């Protein structure tokens, strides 16, 4: 979809090239995050895609066409652009800001109005925001408008230059979630520049780790980069908690679930004791009709006939298959049973994970 072929950019008067010799391809419908230290040319690379910066040599293609063969403004009308400082037009209402590209494309009034309403809803803003001016909105709200404006004419490609870099961590996390939800629906080709490694890992279908001078050190899915850093630079850049970062990318379903020490309410105590011994634990999970009732501490067993007569305590947290292994790890270390129980949408018991199980999921 987007291709860079031996792209080089030297700014006049600069010591070395901003981007030396960069080649890689960005597949259609994926989010690719560009990450690296300052001076690595990540923003320069992004801006060469919509010709805000023109390469010194090499070619950049969008949908198979060399961008230098196209008129800059026509090229950009088909590429959404979101920047850190948002850059909303202060003299226009929110609705007119969002309508920027449709107006340039000459859509009729009714179609523009309908589209603006649709987009404000899409990015989670009330319709009455349309009449306000950018100066009246908070930073997070402004950035939502920035995203809506970029999406207005439904461009296949979206360029985002540290779009969430200027908002506080809570809003940033929310905006990241929203972007992922949007992307599930829209399937845009998104190039996302960030200096936040967690953001790059979280959002990217692939991540491109760049070194000073636009040197591509590693390019691949975040799980792959985390599991197998190409060199010391990437390793150092990923930083601490590489394993935990990977866990946060892997779903519970990637690990094999253990049936675990399970009994039903009707199970006799003697049988329950035997199951505990088999599993080398001092508790059992109680599952009735496929649903998790809770767990029983083995220390309670004292002459009762069956499990039903003991005190069944509920699991504080249960997981779904699409939760991450990081959440599973968090659940199990806070649970007295040291396991994380996994259920389906109907709360039916699927199995459980312990530390060993999570470890196998990662390997």
């Amino acid at each position: 979809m987007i291709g860079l072929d031996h792209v080089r950019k030297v700014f006049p008067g600069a010591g070395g090239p901003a981007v030396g010799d960069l080649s890689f391809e960005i597949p259609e419908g994926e989010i690719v995050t560009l990450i690296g230290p300052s001076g690595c040319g990540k923003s320069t690379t992004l801006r060469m895609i919509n010709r805000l910066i023109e390469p010194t040599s090499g070619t950049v293609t969008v949908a198979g066409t060399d961008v230098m063969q196209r008129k800059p403004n026509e090229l950009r009308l088909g590429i959404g652009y979101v920047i850190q400082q948002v850059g909303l037009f202060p003299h226009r209402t929110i609705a007119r800001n969002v309508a920027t590209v449709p107006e340039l494309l000459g859509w009729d009034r009714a179609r523009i109005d309908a589209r603006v309403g649709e987009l404000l809803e899409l990015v989670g803003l009330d319709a009455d925001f349309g009449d306000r001016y950018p100066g009246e909105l908070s930073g997070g709200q402004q950035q939502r408008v920035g995203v809506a404006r970029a999406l207005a004419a439904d461009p296949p490609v979206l360029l985002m230059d540290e779009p969430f870099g200027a908002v506080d961590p809570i809003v940033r996390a929310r905006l990241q979630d929203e972007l992922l939800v949007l992307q599930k629906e829209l399937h845009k080709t998104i190039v996302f520049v960030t200096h936040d490694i967690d953001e790059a890992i979280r959002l990217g279908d692939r991540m491109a780790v760049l070194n000073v001078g636009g040197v591509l050190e590693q390019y691949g899915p975040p799980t792959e980069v985390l599991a197998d850093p190409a060199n010391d630079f990437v390793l150092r850049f990923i930083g601490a908690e590489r394993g935990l970062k990977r866990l946060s990318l892997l779903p519970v379903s990637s690990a094999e679930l253990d049936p675990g020490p399970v009994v039903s309410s009707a199970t006799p105590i003697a049988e329950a004791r035997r199951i505990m011994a088999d599993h080398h634990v001092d508790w059992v999970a109680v599952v009735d009709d496929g649903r998790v009732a809770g767990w029983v501490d083995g220390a309670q067993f004292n002459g009762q006939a069956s499990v039903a007569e003991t005190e069944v305590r509920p699991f504080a947290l249960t997981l779904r298959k699409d939760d991450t292994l990081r959440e599973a790890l968090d659940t199990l270390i806070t649970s007295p049973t040291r396991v994380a129980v996994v259920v389906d949408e109907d709360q039916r018991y699927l199995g459980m994970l312990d530390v060993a199980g999570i470890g196998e999921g990662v390997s």
Partner: protein
Amino acid sequence: MTGFGLDQFEVNLFDRATTVLAQADEPIVRWKWIGDHTAEIRTALVQHLELTLIAVVVGFVLSMLLSLLILRFRVTFAPINAITGVLYAIPSLALFVLLVPITGLTTLTAEIALVSYTLQILVRSIVAGVDGVSPAVRDAAAGMGYTRGQRLWRVEMPLALPVIMSGLRIATVTTVGLVPIAGLLGSDQGGLGQLIFDGLNRFFNTPLIVGAVLTVLLAVVLDVLLVQLEHLLTPWTRATRKARKAQRRRASRAAATNPATKAATNPATNAAAT
């Protein structure tokens, strides 16, 4: 007189005015004279307004052209600024004297001088206004797909309006004040200046005062009208100011009621709260 003897001339003018106004046997204003000369006064006022408006409109158009040249080719800024600066610095009287041999004792002479005084302030305010547009807005506009021209007229100029309008106000008020000097070009010139010079020539202070007071009033009225015009053209500046004020109020209230929450009043966390 040496050279044009302008300084001497202006001192004489001032002495003359002082003498006229200091006449003990003359009332400050003869109301009857005003009643008898309303037609003349109205004509002078209308001419004053005409001379001012023509000068400001022509000056604005010329300044806009010069500014477009500067915005397109930065190297032209220094020479244009130097030339308009010299024009601005020439005493008005001297400029009239220099122009009379070429254009005669005409309205054209008056307008050339008046227009040349507006250029410096207008060119500077247009260029400063456009330069003041935030780089992020410029970058976003280019990234959205505006051509250079679209960006200038649909984004940069509208955002430069507050600065341009303040330049226009100064240029207008200055021109109103300069028009009377064109009265030196002849008894049918200079708008309200006719009345002022009439008063000076005849040692008669009523027309002098009427001319001066109306000149001031005209300047004030035009300035107020321009403020109103700016108000109409830039609704966003008020909305933004109001929002900022409300934000500050909320912040200080929160800080006042509970000093511990002070940290929560910085803009970043405000954003999180909304």
